[in-house]
């Protein structure tokens, strides 16, 4: 197979970007999309030209490092897969493929296809954990957790923090990412202790970062490589309202 790739090049965070066209020949259907970029890069480097910068690491869809728009879709069109898992058998031979970084003002481009997603760490810092110190835990079976709750928590906990939800959302909202962590912890007794503070703090961090709000397009769920559900957002909104009201009432009572 052979392909024409239109790839976003940008020298650094401040420089203006542009599309550059590259040809990829001798591609086989088993190859992953990133292996095609490797191939293009090998040829560039052989010619003494600067390689295309892009992020990837595990190359098996779990670390969440890779983050490309392929033909306008986050991680490409293969459902439930990250772009490192995207196989070339999903493309037509001879096709022209457009490759861009994930698009959001909150994910500034550092170089070519490399972006800065550190804002996600800051949302987690606001409360995406159980506040327990090492050494303080009771026996792991001391608190029974129903199988359904454990499964529900796991469904949400599978988020890999890649940011495809933000890139796919017309409002560049990070609500799927944020709500997945909130839902994961709220499903478990260990996480329920702090749920009220958590939802307020994480939503505040998300808003402060400049992400948009959800208007129920559902693009995030469609783009999510791990099948994180839109219902998590509804749950987060519910928790947010409850928590806001209770916290306001408590404050009023205290004063």
């Amino acid at each position, binding site marked *: 197979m052979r392909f024409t790739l239109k790839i976003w090049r940008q020298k650094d965070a401040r420089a203006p970007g542009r599309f550059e066209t590259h040809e990829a020949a001798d591609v*086989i259907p088993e190859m992953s999309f990133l*292996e095609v970029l490797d191939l293009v890069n090998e040829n560039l480097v052989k010619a003494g030209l600067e390689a295309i910068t892009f992020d990837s690491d595990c190359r098996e869809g*779990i670390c969440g490092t890779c983050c490309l728009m392929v033909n306008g879709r986050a991680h490409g069109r293969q459902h439930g897969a990250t772009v490192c898992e995207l196989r070339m058998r999903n493309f037509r031979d001879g096709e022209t493929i457009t490759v861009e970084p994930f698009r959001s003002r909150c994910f500034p481009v550092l170089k070519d296809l490399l972006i800065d997603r550190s804002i996600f760490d800051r949302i987690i810092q606001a409360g995406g954990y159980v506040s327990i110190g090492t050494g303080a835990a009771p026996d792991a079976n001391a608190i029974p957790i129903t199988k359904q709750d454990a499964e529900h928590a796991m469904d949400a906990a599978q988020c890999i923090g890649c940011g495809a939800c933000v890139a796919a959302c017309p409002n560049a909202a990070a609500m799927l990412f944020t709500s997945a962590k909130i839902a994961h912890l709220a499903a478990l007794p260990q996480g329920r202790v702090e749920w009220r503070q958590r939802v307020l703090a994480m939503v505040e961090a998300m808003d402060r970062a400049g992400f948009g709000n959800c208007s129920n397009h559902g693009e995030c769920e469609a783009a999510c490589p791990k099948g994180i559900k839109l219902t998590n957002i509804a749950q987060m909104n519910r928790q947010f309202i409850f928590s806001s009201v209770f916290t306001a009432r408590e404050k009023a009572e205290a004063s």
Partner: protein
Amino acid sequence: MIALDSKIPDGPLPEKWERHRGRLKLVSPANKRKYNIIVVGTGLAGASGAASLAELGYNVAVFCLHDSPRRAHSIAAQGGINAAKNYANDSDNVYRLFYDTVKGGDFRSREANVFRLAQVSSAIIDHCAAQGVPFARDYGGMLVTRSFGGAQVSRTFYARGQTGQQLLLGAYGALMRQVKSGRVKLFPRREMVDLVVAEGRARGIVVRNLVTGALESYAADAVVLATGGYANVFFLSTNAVSSNVSAAWRAYHRGALFANPSFTQIHPTCIPVSGKHQAKLVLMSESLRNDGRVWVPRKGGDSRPPAEILEAERFYFLEEKYPRFGNLVPRDVASRNAKAVIDQGLGVGPTRVAVYLDFSDALAREGKRVIAERYGNLFEMYTNITAEDPYQAPMRIYPAPHYTMGGLWVDYDLMTTIPGLFAVGEVNFSDHGANRLGASALMQGLADGYFILPYTLGGYLADLAPAARDTSPKAFSDAASAAQARLEKLCAVRGRRPPQDFHRELGELLWHNCGMSRNETGLGEALQKIPEIREAFWREVSVPGSSAGCNQVLERAVRVADFLEFAELLVRDALLRKESCGGHFREESQTGEGEAQRDDTNFCYVSAWESKGPNETPEEHQEPLVFESLLLSRRSYK
């Protein structure tokens, strides 16, 4: 001559750790904040260690080469984590986990370290459950376990096929909590390029900022390396593409000894290589061997589809050869046997370099729903890569480099031979001997980080007056200018071959001459060829662009340059160890049945290599292994 003092505490095995903890000096709570600690790497060991140290009150600076600490390769661990909880009531206990781990490592690990690991294993599960790790549970709400290779009990806890991910996100959450508290400062997209040793102690690091290209120096009272293993020396491995040996290699050149580099693990169940294009190999969890049966056709060259091959025509080689453990023999044994049947011409699939992993019996017995619940995501991964459906036809698998038992030599306190430099997780050599059992890497990483390092590092600091974070000493500028010179030298070659070209060449050489089976001739040949590849690299490598700014080809070139040096040490170690043990199989040393033949008279030691300078032959030191509790026996899984 460096004196190798393992500092194993006295007393009976079960009491050593408690006694030692009781004797370790303490830093008073008010003084902890005066100490600065650097942690490099944010996998299970690094993240858990950094978070736990910060909880105690130390100032911690955390470095990782990824954009976020959550990306570290621990995240890709699939199957599970071992702990001697005995929740399954199958007679498991600390001693049994200890025994299985030492035996699984083919009696090439320290008894005291492994016993401690088994002792703290239960606390890890408790802590992770309390963090909200969604471990698999039964309908009564209790934790469930499964079996892994090398054990006859069910002690492996799991979260679907993403146990590493969930444990790492737990540790990452703990770390983020400390970032918020202000006790941890995070430095992502930084790669360590040198260790700074001043007045005989580890005093800081030099890192390259991968976005700006600038070299940055950081000073501290102690440095912790948690930088993972070196399986990528084989080019194709199950490791993430950026996993590398560089941080450990820099520490080695600064005086840390490197132990047992030849102890590498080849994992039996990976998706076979399909072509030259491949950047890495994908693992299929060992947990699959709970329900999958490994076989090949009895007749060579049998190209019928697997479903048409009758039961009597199938060679279930693991079950036949090892009736007691069957498909759940340890990884080294499973890998060697797969290689053996393929070498006999019994391999399957288009390349004939694969064996079947068949789920049809389990599907018939348990039903598709149960199997999907256990392994659904693994089956999906397999289907995506191969376009074949394991619910319909058996998987095809082949061994691939996966984990490295060797690493920086550490004493019982996890400190290297450089005072103040600690090594935790896969980067140290301590607990797995010559072969690691499945689900024990997560256990060791978290044991080191949550429950060992926080105590032992305190013991080291207690004798030390806190120093200012001062990077003005000459050792810092010396290290930085040496690193900058190395970068400039790479950029100046201006050859025609990309760095991965040399990496691939090195990897193929190692895979054939120093992989699943090794012999004197092959190793000698490798020892001769590696310097040739290295010289070609420095003559012909192409690194376009400069060291200023972001340059991923340069990052790769730096790592490959270090692998090209390190590989020589690996082969040298393999050549010197003329016995077979665990993952290190010397063809000259095998039993009549083709099993590994250990030589306890001559090789019951840890080899620890000292750098004598960049182009000098390194010196081997030996730490004798003393077995007080276990009888050295031949490993048998029959």
